[in-house]
């Protein structure tokens, strides 16, 4: 009965995805991307994945949007309009081949919502049946996350900490930047540019306006 709503949401998703890639203003693209994530979160909620919907709304739509906005404010708001026609023709066959492969693969999938699908008869039965007895936790996703498959969660926590550290390593000001080393200039023409090197009017194409502030 919720199927038509699903369909509508999916069409909206496709439209926002296309628009997010098409618009020239990057802030608008970010807003569209956040809308895309939000609609995805609605879809998640529609098929009863409430935990995922919450996290997608908070992380996918909220925080990712904030990160994009901060990055765009720190860089430029205008996307470079340059079409890359040759690459498009090289990539399209790849995408078509990928779609063909996926279409072929999805013919073997069980129907959506089929209670006899292997996944429904697999390990998740055990989780649902035993969760309360094992952990006194009615939310099975939580007991899965923090107990049955807690190692995944540990890995995931490490991923996010790793990502933060990697971002810090990329942007943090280091004492000894490579360009300070005694490289022979002829060996590395131009050298590795310093973080703070001013390249001057590198952005003469008229699109280099920084963000609003």
């Amino acid at each position, binding site marked *: 009965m919720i199927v038509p709503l699903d369909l509508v949401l999916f069409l909206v998703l496709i439209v926002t995805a296309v628009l997010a890639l098409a618009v020239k203003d990057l802030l608008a693209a970010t807003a569209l991307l956040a809308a895309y994530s939000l609609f995805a979160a609605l879809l998640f909620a529609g098929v009863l994945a*409430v*935990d995922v*919907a*919450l*996290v997608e709304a*908070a*992380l996918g739509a*909220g*925080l990712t949007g*904030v*990160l994009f906005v*901060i*990055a765009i*404010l*720190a860089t430029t708001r205008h996307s470079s309009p340059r079409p890359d026609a040759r690459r498009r023709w090289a990539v399209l066959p790849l995408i078509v081949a990928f779609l063909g492969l996926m279409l072929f693969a999805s013919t073997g999938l069980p129907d959506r919502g089929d209670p006899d699908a292997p996944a429904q008869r697999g390990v998740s039965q055990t989780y649902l049946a035993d969760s309360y*007895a*094992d*952990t*006194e*936790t*009615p*939310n099975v*996703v*939580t*007991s899965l*996350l*923090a*107990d049955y498959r*807690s*190692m995944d*969660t*540990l890995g*995931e*926590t*490490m991923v*996010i*900490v790793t*990502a*933060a*550290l990697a*971002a*810090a390593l*990329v*942007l*943090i*000001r280091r004492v000894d930047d490579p360009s300070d080393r005694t490289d022979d200039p002829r060996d590395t023409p131009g050298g590795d540019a310093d973080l703070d090197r001013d390249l001057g009017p590198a952005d003469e194409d008229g699109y280099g306006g920084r*963000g609003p*502030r």
Partner: protein
Amino acid sequence: MIGAYPSVVVRVVCALLSPFILMFGLYVVAHGHYGPGGGFAGGVFIAVGAILPRLTLPEELAYRLVPPAAGPLAGGVGLLLFLLVGTLPLLVGGSFLDYGAVEIAGLEASRVRYLGILVVEAAVGLAVFGAMVLIVDVLTGKDRP
């Protein structure tokens, strides 16, 4: 590059909002057992509570509320907490992350697991909070403790 927002309405509303967001975040972390939520969503909410002042309030004030060192520190401590909880059962002969193996007088194994989940969620929330604050800090160029 991100500092006090020109509009006083925005500044005041955000300043008023962020403690409530923090509280909601804590609630989501703690509520994971019974409904949607848990460490990840909660950690994000708490992080948003800390990030919002950074986007709207004057810099000094925002960094006094949540100093930049909080990012890496919270990330490290959260991860360490998770690891310690995981290792605790090893010491009493269980396997890694097997909270049920820890015997606490008067509590059944399932109850111990229940508590273990709570601690893990808190650790995850802390780590996610730290990581997000750190990412925002380096992106805005304020990375030095």
